């Protein structure tokens, strides 16, 4: 199974490698299963050896014997360092301000990094009923910053106007009269490139594209008039070392490296 680093780089490998680099200097990450796990596991082996993943299920310091299938997988619990109750996890860890980076996904995102994971269409008579917030609203409100990983950058997901805002960024909180605690979404990592913003009052702008992707392609895939950074860069593809670690150590059986 140990593929050499010459095999073609998959989209998952690309996203995981790019996301992992953004974790340099971070201590605590709130992450779900899949791409975020891969990114954090890779970061533990490269730029952030001390980084700790906290799972929504309450697990801290997991040492799983197998790659977990869900955030509550039994292999995350056995041999872990701590398992917290829900009030402790959400109250003391998340709302307590202990998370540096929260990873979130969503069905829809807007230019301010607001997220919709509730419905497509009208909430009262939705075209599609999505799972809803789960803990996403809390991750957004309380993490120092939030990274969003989107496998597909297209206008159905990158909207000028959300159908419904489940998890608001700090600008919406401010307009609601409440002082936000975190910066909201600071990085959106997609199959086309990286969007970024620093915090309140800033909208997402394109800061990097993957090799071969044009600015126009990204702007067309985005449902609003996407701003572009003055110093636009090209994303460095996964290095040989990153690919080897991902393929040989992090996910040798290709559970998430689709």
């Amino acid at each position: 199974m140990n593929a050499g680093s010459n095999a073609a780089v998959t989209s998952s490998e690309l996203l995981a490698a790019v996301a992992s680099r953004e974790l340099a200097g971070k201590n605590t990450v709130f992450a779900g299963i899949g791409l975020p796990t891969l990114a954090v596991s890779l970061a533990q082996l490269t730029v952030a050896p001390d980084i700790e993943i906290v799972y929504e299920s309450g697990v801290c310091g997991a040492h799983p014997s197998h790659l977990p299938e869900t955030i509550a997988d039994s292999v995350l619990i056995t041999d872990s360092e701590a398992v917290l109750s829900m009030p402790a996890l959400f109250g003391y860890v998340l709302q307590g301000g202990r998370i540096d980076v929260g990873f979130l996904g969503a069905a829809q995102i807007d230019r301010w990094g607001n997220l919709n994971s509730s419905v497509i269409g009208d909430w009262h008579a939705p075209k599609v009923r999505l799972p809803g917030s789960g803990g996403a609203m809390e991750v957004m409100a309380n993490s120092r910053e939030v990274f969003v990983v989107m496998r597909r950058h297209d206008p159905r997901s990158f909207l000028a106007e959300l159908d419904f805002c489940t998890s608001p960024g700090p600008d919406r909180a401010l307009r609601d009269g409440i002082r936000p605690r975190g910066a909201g979404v600071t990085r959106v990592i997609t199959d086309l490139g990286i969007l970024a913003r620093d915090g309140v009052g800033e909208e997402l702008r394109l800061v990097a594209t993957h090799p071969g992707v044009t600015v126009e392609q990204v702007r067309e895939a985005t449902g609003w008039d996407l701003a572009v950074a003055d110093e636009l860069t090209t994303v460095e593809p996964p290095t040989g070392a990153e690919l080897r670690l991902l393929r040989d150590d992090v996910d040798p059986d290709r559970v998430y490296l689709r």
Partner: protein
Amino acid sequence: MDNPVAASKPPVRRPDKTTTMREAIAAHVTDGATVALEGFTHLIPTAAGHEIIRQGRRDLTVARMTADIVTDQLIAGGCVRKLVSSFVGNSTAGSLGELRRRIETGQPEPLEYEEYSHYGMICRYLAGAQRLPFYPLRSYAGSDVPSVNPDIRKVTSPYPGPDGAEEQIYVVPPLNPDVTIVHAQRADRAGNTQIWGLTGIQAEAVYAARKAIVVVEEVVADEVIRSDPNRTVIPAHAVDAVVECPGGAHPAFAQGYYDRDGEFYRSWSHISKDPDRLQRWLDEWVRGTADHAEYLAKLGEETRERLSVGEAWSQPVNYGRRQ
């Protein structure tokens, strides 16, 4: 410090709350009641949900943070009028067919849905358990959720905020279920309940409720519980009925007893997608089985073998004994 209690002292009498699943559901789950079924992916009270379907309860308000397969089954079983939840999905394995049909098309009848975030639900249980009129939390600021859920409101803090200005915060109201049902690894006959692995919101959901049913993998001797009182997540005084039902969390898992049935999770998207197929599944597996023992027998030895787990024992700690 040499005051041993006389050896002749009679043992303290403890009430015996053990009963059958049939009796527990019949006694404590009534039509129209608000029923909390909790267990965060781990220790989901599936067997109790099935018995509610078998007994044909109607018009329930079901509270459950992660509304997943058992919730979809209860809705399809015609038991549920309203759902209070913060996540409606089949874990990472797909959709809940019946729930989506009810909400998206209103067919065969509409489902009332009260939407919260996870911490919103947690705080509702916290307020319920603590008999508080509300519980404050730093979620919901700028969200559209309060616009579709008028029970999420704001309070002004009587202390100045970090910038010296007045500070507002959202609050949620208490949730006090008529009955809370949880699944656990073990309990004694009086109801002292021990859980390890993910402990979730079970204690708060039980304390918030008027009545509580604890379903366990094993009823154990008092001495087992009392060898490790810190492991008791739910004390006897909060429990009304103890039901021994091994395997009762399937397809969810019970840490140290059996693993999650990922195959079943993946199959649920297909089963639930077609309303007829879903009803046939309920007829065969729930309405067509007398109890959970029959359901498990039907599941078969091979599945149970596939889900079995090995050993990883905790190292014991010394509680000490005065000499």
